[in-house]
């Protein structure tokens, strides 16, 4: 078999090129993903792990009752929550309910060691802290793609497919309640679809408390189909439903009959000091006003 140097180099470079391409392949089909488990005890264990962290809460400062949003002056709904710290004992049931409602994935050991859990509710000194859905949200101002956007219903919404993972919003959030998907939870078998209504998030996407937007959307669409005015009466977030002491109250700030407006009547309304000027929708109740 005679082969010229030219032919040999040709074949050799082709083979090398082929091998290089083979090395760059997507190998998801060849290293099978670990079997995803939907065993709730795994999430319960992770929540316990997360609650052992010592995250400082900072000071709570009194604020005025949230009113209509300056961005949407004509809207008749502004949803929010009040967490009664006189009743709350920091049991963490709300975190589990939130995880199961919103299909929040677990993190791998490396992330867990760094204390970077995906839970939308965090216990800081025994106080549940989640996104406050600020009326004047600093996260929305820095999002380069408009994935973090204000909703006319008072939520600070997150449109996952728009998110390119710049993490500017997380950096600009004073309360540090935004969570970034550092790991591909689906590929590592760390996520489960407990609730078919909520999509799973991909790697490289920021997420946070959505104020159970899926429940509000479902209720709104039903009301609109039946031709009724929608004030969100009867809708509750997963954490408010799960709280064994009923310390979390969900409702409409602009509806004087909503359970939220009833619950805050005559109470001291507080928020984290870091976001006191940002018109938060999720507040804490302490003592009498």
């Amino acid at each position, binding site marked *: 078999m005679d082969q010229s140097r030219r032919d040999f180099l040709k074949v050799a470079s082709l083979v090398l090129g082929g091998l290089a391409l083979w090395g760059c392949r997507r190998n998801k089909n060849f290293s099978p993903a670990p079997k995803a488990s939907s065993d709730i005890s795994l999430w319960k264990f992770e929540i316990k792990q997360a609650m052992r962290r010592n995250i400082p809460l900072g000071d709570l400062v009194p604020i005025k009752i949230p009113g209509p949003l300056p961005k949407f002056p004509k809207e008749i709904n502004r949803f929010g929550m009040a967490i009664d710290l006189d009743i709350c004992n920091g049991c963490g049931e709300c975190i589990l309910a939130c995880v199961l409602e919103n299909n929040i994935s677990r993190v791998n050991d490396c992330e867990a060691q760094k204390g970077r859990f995906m839970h939308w509710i965090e216990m800081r000194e025994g106080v549940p802290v989640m996104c406050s859905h600020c009326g004047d949200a600093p996260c929305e101002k820095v999002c380069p793609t408009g994935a973090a956007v204000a909703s006319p219903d008072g939520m600070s919404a997150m449109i996952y497919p728009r998110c390119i993972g710049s993490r500017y919003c997380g950096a600009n959030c004073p309360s540090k309640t935004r969570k970034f998907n550092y790991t591909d939870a689906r590929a590592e078998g760390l996520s489960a679809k407990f609730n078919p209504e909520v999509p799973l998030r991909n790697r490289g996407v920021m997420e946070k408390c959505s104020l159970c*937007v899926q429940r509000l959307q479902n209720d709104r669409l039903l009301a609109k189909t039946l031709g009724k005015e929608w004030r969100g009466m009867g809708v509750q977030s997963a954490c408010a439903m799960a709280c064994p002491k009923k310390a979390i109250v969900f409702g409409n700030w602009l509806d004087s009959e909503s359970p939220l407006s009833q619950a805050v009547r005559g109470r001291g309304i507080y928020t984290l000091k870091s976001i006191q000027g940002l018109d938060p929708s999720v507040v804490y109740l302490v003592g009498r006003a």
Partner: protein
Amino acid sequence: MKGTLLLCFLGCFGIALIAADLFFSTGDVIASKNKTIAFSHELHGANIGLDCTHCHTGARLGYKAHFPSKQDCLDCHRLPLTDSAGIPKLDSALQVAKAMPWQTESRVPAHVIFHHGVHAKANISCETCHGSIAEIDRGKRASVKMGECLACHRGEKGFAPAATDCARCHR
């Protein structure tokens, strides 16, 4: 010669890899056209004048428009309706049909909500998105891009303007 063989081998391998990727990749959207009985929308809709919601229950008030079960077909087809020559063929097809003859998966991605009831309430006909009966019989399935949703929601397609806020339709 040796080089050509190697090249062929690598080429086949590459094609196999791409095929494997296509075959094993699973998204939120699965389109399946798994019909066991050839169903004519023209015959039922245009000729007899049945409303779409008669079989696709839920389209008027619900979130999803559902597909009929075999029992729903048999509600009318238990006894022969005409003297047509195709009746025995239909009867034998109905006998072997599964309890749920049509299995379809929604094409709407998981992060989008589309409520049929709200759109029916706004007097938007099924044809606006799903196409005419003839098109549906030819196998067309509604495939709407976000731009088309938005054009209609902005009031550019002759219907009243609707919400264009992201969180109204995305979750």
